[in-house]
C-alpha cells in the first residue's frame, strides 16, 4: 500500500499537466450538457437536485398514481412526467400477449391521443373501481342506453374487470381500452367537423 501511495505522489507531477487537460475537457463536457438540457443542475442551499435525465430514470420505476402526483411537483417534474414513453411503460407493464407488435401498438395509440390519455381515461378507472361503482353494477349494466356521451360506454364495462384489479390484462381488455380510445377520438373529430350545432 505504501508503494501505491508514493507512486501516486510521483504520478502527481505527471498528472498536473494531464489534470489541466482533463479539467478543460470536463468543462467542455459540462457546458455541452448544459446546452443540451434546458434546465441546468441547480445546487440549492444544501440540496441536490436531479437533472431532467435522472428524473426520467427515476420515473421509469414508479406506478401510475405516483407519476400523476409527480407531474404536480414542479414545472420541471411536470415536463418530464408527461413523457409518453413513461406512460407506455405503465400501460404495457401488465399487459400479457397483446396480439400485435410493440411498434404497431405505439403508432396506433400515439395517433389516437397517446398512452397518457389512454391510461387516464380507460385504464385507471377500469382497474381501480371505487366502492360506489361496484354497488351500481346491476343498475348501470341494463339501464345504460347508447348515448352521445362517451363516458357512459365505460359504465357497463366496469363489472367485467372489477373482479380482479391487478390481473394481467389480456388481448380482450387491451382491445377494449383501445376501442374506447378510438371512439372518443372519432367523436371529437365528428364534433369539430359538424360545428357547434350538434
Amino acid at each position: 500500500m505504501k508503494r501505491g501511495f508514493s507512486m501516486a505522489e510521483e504520478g502527481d507531477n505527471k498528472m498536473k499537466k494531464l489534470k489541466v487537460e482533463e479539467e478543460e475537457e470536463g468543462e467542455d463536457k459540462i457546458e455541452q450538457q448544459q446546452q443540451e438540457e434546458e434546465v441546468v443542475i441547480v445546487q440549492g442551499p444544501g440540496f441536490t437536485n436531479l437533472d431532467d435525465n435522472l428524473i426520467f430514470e427515476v420515473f421509469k420505476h414508479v406506478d401510475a398514481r405516483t407519476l400523476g402526483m409527480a407531474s404536480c411537483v414542479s414545472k420541471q417534474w411536470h415536463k418530464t412526467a408527461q413523457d409518453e414513453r413513461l406512460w407506455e411503460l405503465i400501460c404495457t407493464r401488465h399487459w400479457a400477449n397483446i396480439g400485435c407488435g410493440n411498434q404497431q401498438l405505439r403508432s396506433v395509440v400515439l395517433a389516437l391521443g397517446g398512452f397518457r390519455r389512454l391510461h387516464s381515461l380507460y385504464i385507471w378507472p377500469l382497474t381501480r373501481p371505487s366502492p360506489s361503482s361496484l354497488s351500481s353494477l346491476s343498475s348501470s349494466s341494463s339501464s345504460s342506453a347508447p348515448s352521445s356521451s362517451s363516458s357512459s360506454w365505460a359504465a357497463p364495462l366496469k363489472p367485467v374487470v372489477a373482479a380482479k384489479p391487478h390481473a394481467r390484462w389480456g388481448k380482450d381488455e387491451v382491445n377494449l381500452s383501445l376501442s374506447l380510445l378510438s371512439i372518443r377520438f372519432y367523436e371529437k373529430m365528428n364534433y369539430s367537423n359538424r360545428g357547434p350545432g350538434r
Partner: protein
Amino acid sequence: MSTSTDNNASITQESGPSAAVQDIQKKIVVRTADGEVFNLKEEVAMEIDIIKTFFQEDSISYETVMPLPNVEGWEMVKVIEYCTKHVELKHKVDGYKERKAFQALFVQNLSTKSLLALTNTANYLEVKYLLDFLCQAVSEQIKNKDVDYVRELFGVENDFNDEEYEQVKAEAPWAHENLNNDLH
C-alpha cells in the same frame, strides 16, 4: 518477466500496455474531489465506464492517477462497495437473495440527500446497473406520497401559481386521492 516476483512491481513497470503481460492483479489509482486517493482492483475499476474509457487510451498508463473532480470520497467508497459486490456475484450461479440483501443494506442508512448525491455520481461515473438500482431506490421514496411531502424531501420548489397548479392537478385528479391510506 524478471521483475515479476514483487507484488507491487506492476506499478513500477515501464508505462504502456506492456504491463498487461504480467498476470498479477493490477491496481488503478483515482483521486476524488476532496483529495482522497483510492486504489482499486482492476476488475472493479473496469466496472466504472468513465475510468475504463480513461485508461483505454494508449498514452495513459496504469501509473496515472485519474482525477475525479465531481466525486466525493464517501461516494467513491460506496461505489467501490457496490461494484465489488457486483463483480463477486457475477461468478455466483444463484446470487439473487444475496444481491437483494446487499442492496437493502446498501441504502439503509443513506439520507435522501445522500441518495440523490450518489445517484448523480453513479450517472457521472457511468455505472449503469448502479444508477438503475439507485433510481429505483429513489422511486421507492416517492411512491404513494403526496406532492408536499415529495417537494420537501427533494428540496424542490413549487414554481406553479395557484391557477397553474389546479390545471395540472386536473390532468390526473385520481392521482391525488387516498394517498397515504393506500394499502397497495
